[in-house]
């Protein structure tokens, strides 16, 4: 009898240790990816069926609630601005001098024809806050050791009910992600091809975002520069900034 109790306790402890590990891994990832605030200049190359377009933008973010993006190029997109405040999103078009609120099913539409939706762009929450994780194995990607985690959503208001992520064992950055719908259908895939260190934290600087329901080569994203914990004025996150 004692034998069984010891065995059961050992199993319980080992399960606890595994889930702890998974949670810790998510915390590590969140520490790398999240900050009180950040300013990112990035470029996005969208591979369409007939051509490819590259656009650059600068994004100011405070926590996971406030974000402001301004497109810098090309000419057609220059001056287009997006403001996210909690779960609301506004887009400003300089050509029409109009501010349009995007809501409902429109949030699932593609941003600028890319493989990323407005919903993807808006969700900055920490992984640990919205997912329960479980380590399901270890693998190698391009010679780099990764831990494979299975994530299940613990909140309802989330675009992807489950994720499978391949986390670099030392840098704690997802090198690959698969995003799934509630039905289990694979919706998006993210592949990171370059990781750099900024202010003592690892951050992905080149990645390919692929909408698995769309034909095409996906959308390439590159980080041109990133600054953490900047002094971002509060007016950047008001609707007034859109028309400036």
């Amino acid at each position, binding site marked *: 009898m004692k034998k069984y109790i010891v065995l059961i306790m050992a199993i319980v402890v080992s399960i606890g240790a595994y889930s702890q590990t998974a949670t810790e891994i998510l915390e590590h990832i969140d520490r790398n990816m999240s900050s009180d605030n950040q300013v990112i200049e990035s470029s996005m190359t*969208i591979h*369409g*069926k*007939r*051509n490819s*377009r590259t656009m650059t933008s600068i994004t100011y973010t405070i926590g996971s609630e406030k974000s402001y993006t301004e497109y810098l190029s090309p000419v*057609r*997109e220059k001056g*287009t601005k997006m403001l996210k405040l909690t779960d609301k999103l*506004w*887009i400003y*078009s300089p*050509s*029409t*001098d*109009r*501010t*349009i*609120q995007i809501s409902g099913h*429109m949030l699932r*539409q*593609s941003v*600028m*024809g*890319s493989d990323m939706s407005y919903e993807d762009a808006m969700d900055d929450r920490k992984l640990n806050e919205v997912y329960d994780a479980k380590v399901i194995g270890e693998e190698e990607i391009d010679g780099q050791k990764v831990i494979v985690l299975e994530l299940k959503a613990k909140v309802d208001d989330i675009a992807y009910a489950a994720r499978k992520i391949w986390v670099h064992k030392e840098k704690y950055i997802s090198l690959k992600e698969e995003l799934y719908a509630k039905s289990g259908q694979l919706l998006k895939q993210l592949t990171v091809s370059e990781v750099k260190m900024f202010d003592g934290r690892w951050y992905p600087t080149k990645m390919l975002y692929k909408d698995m329901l769309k034909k095409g080569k996906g959308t390439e994203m590159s980080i041109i520069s990133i600054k953490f914990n900047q002094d971002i004025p509060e007016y950047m996150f008001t*609707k007034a900034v859109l028309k400036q």
Partner: protein
Amino acid sequence: MIKFLLKGILRDKSRSLLPIIVISLGVFLTIFMSGWMKGIFTDMVDMNAKFTTGHVKIMTRAYAENEKQIPNDLALLDAENWMQKLNTEYPDVEWVQRIHFGGLIDVPDANGETRAQGPAMGKAVDLFSENTNEPERMNITKSLVKGVMPSKSGEALISDEFAERFGVKLGDKVTIFGSTMYGSMMFQTFDVTGTISFGISMLDRGAIIVDIKDAQKALDMEDATSEILGYFKESSYDDIRADSLKADFNGKYSNIDDEYSPQMFKLTEQGILKEMLARGENMTSIMVFIFIIAMSIVLWNTGLLGGLRRYSEYGVRLALGEEKGHIYKTIIIEAIIIGFIGSVVGTILGVGACYYLQENGIDFSAMMKNVDMMMPPVYRAIVTPDLFYVGFIPGLVAMTLGNALAGYAIYKRKTATLFKELEV
């Protein structure tokens, strides 16, 4: 003999009244249903041709594959060059460019911020060219509920339903938000000059109509078009002509290895029209077939009853020396006369009812609010030459067949037992 039989038919109402009523009713129903269904199908084809399919339609192969998703990124480029080619090579067809687009119609408040928004189903057609037939073809002018047609660039018509729901007034501005041909954000503001209602819920839901040049500019589709539609100038749709036009064009210009090469489709092979038209044609044949079978059974029965009732009469005629073959012949001729009278009455009633419905129709729009098909709101019949025989011949055949079957019993009568039978 015919005069004698006619007198019999007119004087002995019990011999003719029921068969005439039955045949008239059957012929009437056949003609009426046939005319009405043909009318609905004709209207549906006509409406689809005008709004979506043309008599023939040209798209890129890739666009055609995903047509329902309105993939303007796969639109036909070099549109003006194609228009010139088509006008030169096929001058007896009127060629027009059309662009479809989706997105949001956003109604601003006084500060230029979103007051209301709803899904947009945009159609861009040639509104301003000197010789354009598009507003008339799409019945846009007649569908105006309020306001006037756009007269210059930057003006649009929106669905009356949308305008009512979101309080959009004439002269207000609305912004279309969507994607350009290359996936960029598309914002374009239009002045609302009028509201429209086609009476077709599929078209009225979030409809916005703009000039094609405005759409090309907004959607980054300069010299590109979603589709080029062709309409036969001197005639209505002709399937054989469309077939030959399609074969000629596709043979010259469509390349199976190039997904952006143009491909021509004829009206009857687009969407669900092909299936519906085939069903529509079969429907008349099926109805006539059922009518002949059902009527023959009814009239056979009526003939049998008549034979029983006239049992003594036939017996006397046989006793007087009339041949069985002669009596059978009179039964058949009598049936033909009754069938003729019933068919004439039924045809007059059927064609008359069809004509009435052709002119007036029945408005089903209230029942079609959630129908996602391009269906006419008013169901009309159509009077075509075939209505004059589609019920008439079956009526005549059914009556003759029924009486021929019933009258055959005359050959089972035996002269030897006649007097015994007549004593009764």
